[in-house]
């Protein structure tokens, strides 16, 4: 069984990429693989905002992250990317604020790193 890390590079306004990341991650788990982290980088950091406010006919982004979190996937975001972009790093929902080094170490140990953007 393989170890994956996934990174997300686009803002939460890209719903299509978000649903794809979700399905890929859950399929990894269903196939018996592990997803060591999902890492927010570049514009992806905005996914950790607690102020995303979507109508009920929109992709239920908050639920998707909740599900991934409940299934034990470590949700991380890059602190440097976040500070430059204006994310409030004191309120990042289910995401843990991390340095790039922490992610790079997980990526180095993983069998596969797949980017979503």
């Amino acid at each position, binding site marked *: 069984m393989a170890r994956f890390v996934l990174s997300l590079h686009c803002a939460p306004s890209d*719903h299509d990429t978000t649903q794809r990341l979700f399905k890929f991650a859950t399929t990894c788990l269903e196939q018996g693989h592990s997803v060591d982290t999902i890492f927010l980088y570049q514009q992806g950091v905005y996914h950790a905002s607690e102020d995303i406010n979507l109508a009920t006919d929109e992709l239920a982004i908050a639920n998707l992250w909740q599900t991934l979190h409940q299934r034990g996937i470590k949700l991380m975001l890059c602190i440097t990317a976040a500070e430059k972009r204006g994310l409030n790093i004191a309120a990042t929902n289910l995401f843990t604020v991390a340095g790039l080094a922490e992610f790079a170490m997980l990526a180095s140990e993983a069998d596969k790193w797949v980017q979503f953007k």
Partner: protein
Amino acid sequence: MINVLVLSQHSPFDDMHIRDALDMTLIFAAIEQNISWLFTGPAVLALKENQNPESLGLKNYFKSIKTLEIYDVENIYVCEKSLLDYNLSKNDLIINAKPLNFKAQSQLISAQQQVVNL
């Protein structure tokens, strides 16, 4: 009343580009300006019929595009060449959009006070 043209060039699910353009178009119609909307490049795919984004959990904004005529937005244009590029004909589109060749697109642009590219 001024002439305003909204220009769309992005593919249907590239961020919220087409939806932002839809909002802008509807607002200018609501405040009674002479609004036009031109779809060019992969944006013409936003007018392709029988798409079903709900199957991905995504909002079906194509339904809102279909209602443009109700809101008196009648100047909907598509780039003729871009339709060809994606194998679409006028009849494959969800609304009655006028195909324009490049010369007609240039003329459309020249007739505007404001052009906004979203």
